[in-house]
C-alpha cells in the first residue's frame, strides 16, 4: 500500500517539476511549482517528518511563492520572451543532465548503505527537533538570524530609488 503511494507521489512530483521547466507562461510555472512543493510535503509526511512538512508548506508554498507571484504580476510578464525556438540547447542540457544522473547512480550502485538502524517514530516531531536545534545547533540558529538581518538590509538598499547613471 505505502509503496504504491510513494510511487504515485514520485511520478506526480517529477511530472509537475518537468511542467515547471517546460511551461511557456511564468504564472503556470509558479502554479506547478506550488504543486511540486505540496507533493514534496506529502513525501515528508510519508517519511514521518511532520514538522518539516508543515514548515515546507508555510515557508515555500506560503511565503516564497507569493513573493514570486507578486514579482511576476508587478513586472507584468504575461508575454512570451523566448523568440527563437531552437531545440539544440534542450538536447545539450538533457544529455549533460543525463550524464550527471548516470554518474550519480553508478556511484550509488557501488555504495553500501547501512540498513540496520533503530527507528523511532517521534524523530520528525517538533519536540524532538526543537530539542536538537536549541541544544546542539544554537550557534547556527543565531547566525541564521544575523543572515536574515543582512538580507533585509540588502533588500532595502536594493529597492531604494536611485539615479540611473547613463554611460553611453
Amino acid at each position: 500500500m505505502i509503496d504504491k503511494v510513494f510511487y504515485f507521489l514520485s511520478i506526480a512530483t517529477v511530472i509537475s517539476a518537468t511542467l515547471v521547466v517546460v511551461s511557456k507562461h511564468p504564472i503556470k510555472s509558479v502554479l506547478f511549482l506550488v504543486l511540486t512543493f505540496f507533493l514534496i510535503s506529502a513525501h515528508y509526511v510519508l517519511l514521518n517528518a511532520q514538522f518539516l512538512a508543515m514548515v515546507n508548506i508555510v515557508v515555500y508554498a506560503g511565503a516564497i511563492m507569493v513573493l514570486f507571484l507578486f514579482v511576476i504580476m508587478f513586472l507584468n510578464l504575461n508575454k512570451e520572451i523566448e523568440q527563437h525556438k531552437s531545440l539544440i540547447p534542450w538536447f545539450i542540457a538533457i544529455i549533460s543532465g543525463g550524464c550527471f544522473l548516470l554518474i550519480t547512480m553508478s556511484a550509488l550502485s557501488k555504495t553500501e548503505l547501512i540498513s540496520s538502524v533503530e527507528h523511532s517514530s517521534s524523530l520528525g516531531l517538533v519536540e524532538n527537533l526543537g530539542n536538537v536545534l536549541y541544544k546542539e545547533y544554537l550557534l547556527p540558529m543565531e547566525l541564521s538570524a544575523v543572515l536574515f538581518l543582512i538580507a533585509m538590509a540588502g533588500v532595502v538598499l536594493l529597492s531604494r530609488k536611485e539615479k540611473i547613471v547613463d554611460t553611453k
Partner: protein
Amino acid sequence: METASPEIFSSIPLTHYILLSTTLFVIGLIGVMVRKNIIIVFMCIEIMLNAANLMLTATSVYYNNPGGQIMVFFTMTVAAAEVAVGLAIIVMAFKNLNTTNIDLFNKLKG
C-alpha cells in the same frame, strides 16, 4: 503513537529516494541551463534546493539522525533570504533594462 514508519523502511529502499531527488535535481539543472526567463531560472534553483532537502530528510529518517532535518531547516532559511534578495535584484534589473531575458543581462562584461 506507532505510525506507518516501520513499513516504509521495509517496502521502499533508500535508493529510490536518492533516485527521485537526483531526478528532481537534474530537472532543475536542465531548467537552469535552458530557460531564458530569469524568474523561471530562479524557480528551477528552488526545485534543486528542494531536491537536496528531500534527500537530506530521507537520509535523516532512514538513519534515525535528526541532524539532517535540522540541516533542511537551515536550507529553507537560506533559501528564503536568497529569494528575497534575488527578486529585489531582478526587479532592479527589470527597472534598468526593461527585460527579464538573461541573454540581455550582459552589461557587467568587462
